């Protein structure tokens, strides 16, 4: 008998259908992976189990939790289930905790709300729950506030809150999406251990097949509110039937066709670069301490090369990017582009700048919402002394748009008329329009769904060959870097810890940190991709 059984669940919110005939099962001590891209309804399925749905929601079908009919429960009964029988962990650990309460009080609250015990006992049990979530009391006492903890540590507090009463079922909605790879691996291990220890069922929701692959016993693949495929994980990975799941699997392990065209001539040279920030951390007239975001970094990018730069958040890769683009001055070292300095007399060198462009991560924040596409993608013309006018300009716009797979007619539209993937194509068109030599891709595909990501990676590979582009590809995602770059740099705490051909570095990491990073990165089972 399964612990949670959802049968033909349909959900509509204010009349629009969100879920259609979703069925799934979670058994005690088993892990169910629910996979889907954005808009697949995977999170709403999870929220339906606890009935924590937005106003205007209407459910039909059947949800039974240990033979209890959830949809027939009163709000009062639901409250007594939440936290006690079913725990829940959310995507965003940074905002999931009340900033004004100590972690001890927040974990103890789970206990106090369901059991009539003295506060001291609840706190003692909260300490135990935190310890099980690997936050030992000697380092993380109950009196800590959330802002004193890192994202991974906060997620552990949320997990402690969820498991304090040893629920039968734990629902984790993208629990590691907002975390770095190494932290992600630790949290996933923790969840796995808790499932084994308590014999609870786990419903693990993710957009990332690889995250779920080595954890889940069973899989459900969702798309647009429907289950397209489900079954035991080991079997399913080898026998995908539905074209969508096959496409998803293919896209996850997608490797674009690269054309080898690297020369030995250096295009960008970074020599002993140092970038420091002053932080006034010891009072307002105390001494200022300096924080080295980029610490004595040196490397080269060769013409035609595709170079990866990987590292976790806070490692200094964004600061380094800004320094290369000439947006921030450095405190030491040189950055030379084709032999010319990037910054001259405290100002960015225009000659150099017109040969470099950038594509950012966020397809929604990268464009002024009040401009039309033609104006958006011609913004880099500001760098030219005599930018094309009239028909010449129109042709250039059409060419740029067509080269990224859009049409010349798109020039008159506003950005909100495009999807995330299309926007990222427009960002690439904007980078291409002044025909640069180097394009910096700053987490350029990180916000995209896997299938769209695969298309954009193909486009980048294709454009690289056609226009002889050099790429600096910055990402936290090892699999993406592996698929598109020839050489890779690994950055940690402002330093480059390892450098070499991508395959060699990832297959045979020399540095301890690189090893940790590679081990932590979730991978699909080798025999399926």
């Amino acid at each position: 008998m399964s612990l949670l059984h959802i049968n033909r669940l349909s959900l509509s919110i204010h009349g629009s259908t969100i879920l259609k005939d979703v069925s799934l099962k979670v058994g005690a001590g088993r892990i169910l992976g629910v996979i889907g891209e954005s808009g697949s309804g995977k999170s709403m399925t999870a929220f339906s189990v606890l009935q924590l749905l937005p106003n205007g929601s209407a459910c039909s079908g059947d949800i039974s939790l240990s033979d209890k009919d959830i949809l027939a429960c009163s709000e009062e009964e639901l409250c007594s289930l939440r936290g006690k029988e079913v725990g829940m962990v959310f995507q965003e650990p940074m905002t999931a905790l009340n900033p004004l309460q100590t972690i001890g009080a927040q974990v103890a609250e789970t206990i106090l709300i369901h059991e009539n015990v003295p506060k001291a006992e609840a706190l003692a049990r909260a300490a135990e729950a935190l310890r099980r979530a690997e936050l030992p009391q000697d380092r993380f006492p109950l009196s800590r506030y959330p802002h004193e903890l890192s994202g991974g540590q906060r997620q552990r507090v949320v997990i402690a809150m969820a498991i304090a009463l040893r629920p039968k079922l734990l629902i984790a909605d993208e629990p590691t999406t907002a975390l770095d790879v190494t932290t992600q691996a630790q949290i996933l291990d923790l969840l796995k251990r808790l499932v084994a220890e308590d014999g609870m069922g786990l419903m693990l929701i993710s957009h990332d097949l690889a995250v779920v692959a080595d954890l889940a016993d069973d899989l459900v693949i969702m798309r647009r509110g429907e289950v397209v495929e489900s079954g035991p994980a080991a079997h399913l990975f080898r026998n995908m039937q539905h074209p969508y799941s096959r496409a998803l699997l293919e896209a996850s392990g997608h490797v674009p066709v690269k054309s080898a065209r690297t020369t030995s001539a250096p295009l960008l040279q970074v020599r002993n670069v140092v970038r420091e920030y002053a932080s006034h951390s010891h009072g307002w007239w105390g001494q200022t301490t300096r924080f080295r975001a980029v610490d004595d970094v040196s490397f080269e990018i060769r013409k035609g090369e595709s170079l990866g730069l990987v590292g976790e958040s806070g490692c200094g890769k964004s600061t380094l990017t800004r320094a290369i683009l000439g947006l921030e001055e450095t405190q030491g070292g040189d950055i030379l582009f084709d032999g010319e300095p990037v910054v001259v007399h405290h100002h960015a060198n225009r000659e150099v700048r017109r040969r470099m462009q950038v594509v950012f991560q966020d397809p929604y924040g990268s464009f002024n919402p009040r401009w039309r596409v033609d104006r958006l993608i011609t913004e880099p013309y500001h760098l030219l002394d005599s930018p094309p006018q009239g028909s010449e300009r129109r042709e250039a716009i059409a060419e740029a748009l067509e080269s990224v797979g859009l049409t010349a007619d798109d020039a008159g539209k506003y950005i909100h008329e495009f999807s995330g993937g299309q926007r990222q194509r427009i960002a690439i068109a904007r980078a291409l329009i002044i025909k640069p030599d180097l394009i910096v891709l700053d987490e350029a595909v990180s916000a995209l769904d896997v299938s769209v990501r695969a298309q954009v990676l193909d486009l980048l590979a294709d454009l690289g060959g056609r226009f002889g582009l050099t790429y600096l590809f910055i990402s936290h995602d090892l699999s993406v870097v592996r698929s598109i770059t020839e050489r890779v740099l690994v950055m940690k705490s402002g330093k480059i810890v390892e450098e070499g051909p991508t395959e060699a570095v990832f297959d045979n990491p020399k540095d301890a940190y690189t090893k940790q990073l590679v081990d932590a990165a979730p991978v699909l089972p080798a025999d399926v991709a």
Partner: protein
Amino acid sequence: MLQYFLKRLLSLGLSLVAASVVIFLALEVVPGDPAAYMLGVNAQEDTLNALREQLGLNGTILQRYLSWAGGLLVGDFGTSYTYRTPVSELIGERLWVSLPLALYALTLSTLIAFPAGIWAASRRGSYADAGVMGVTQLGVAIPNFWFAMLMVLVFAINLRWFSAGGFPGWEDGFFAGMKALTLPAIALALPQASILTRVMRSSLLDTLGEDFIRSARAKGLTRGQAMWRHALRNALIPVLTIMGLQFSFLLAGAIIIENVFFLPGLGRLVFQAISSRDLIVVESVVMLLVFAVIVVNFAVDLAYALVDPRLRRRR
């Protein structure tokens, strides 16, 4: 915490100095001789000289500022020309009307706004919510001195529950004094309460949409428990900001409302001083009110630190 406190204290001191310079300079730009301006054209030469001496007009600007500001520090605001008494005494008397009035109004507006805002937010979209929002919409739009006049018409002239104006003084007992201040306090409190209700409601609704409320609900808290235990204190932070800002409006409003009810407070004092060109009194009252605004905002900053642990340990 100590660091935060010291930092605020320094900024408080700087603000006070800056404000005193602004006020001093503003009244220093009086065209011509301030003494002659104050006494009018027919003044005797020796009275003029006496006044100049008394105003300390015989030094450089810096000397005059320093002696004025130095006086302020020890509570010496100078001597009023028209009343021929120390300004500090005049202000002291009037403060016993204005301060209780402002506090009375602040208390009323808080007592109305908090429950009303919480009530409206917890019943978002209901008729109760719409009703509260409608009333506050009117409350924000109504000129408080006109509302005061209407109250005088209804409660003093027609119903004779209150006197139409004047202040018996605290000698007649606490309740007589409070009674005389009741209509003025209501008039003052109404617009403030309306604004505060709206702020309370929207801040609470914002907080109720936060992720940590969802976490609390997932623990098994009811909607109400989640609101009282988790949302309310978080929602208080913007409300405190607005309360701090409102204090200055309350003071300004008090000056006008005192006129409607003929209350012998700082407002009356300042208008009498303007008409009798008693610049020393004007200067002193303005300085005092600005001082009050700055100090209240300082207190609000400290209140933040009490509510929000993130500020307590911020370096």
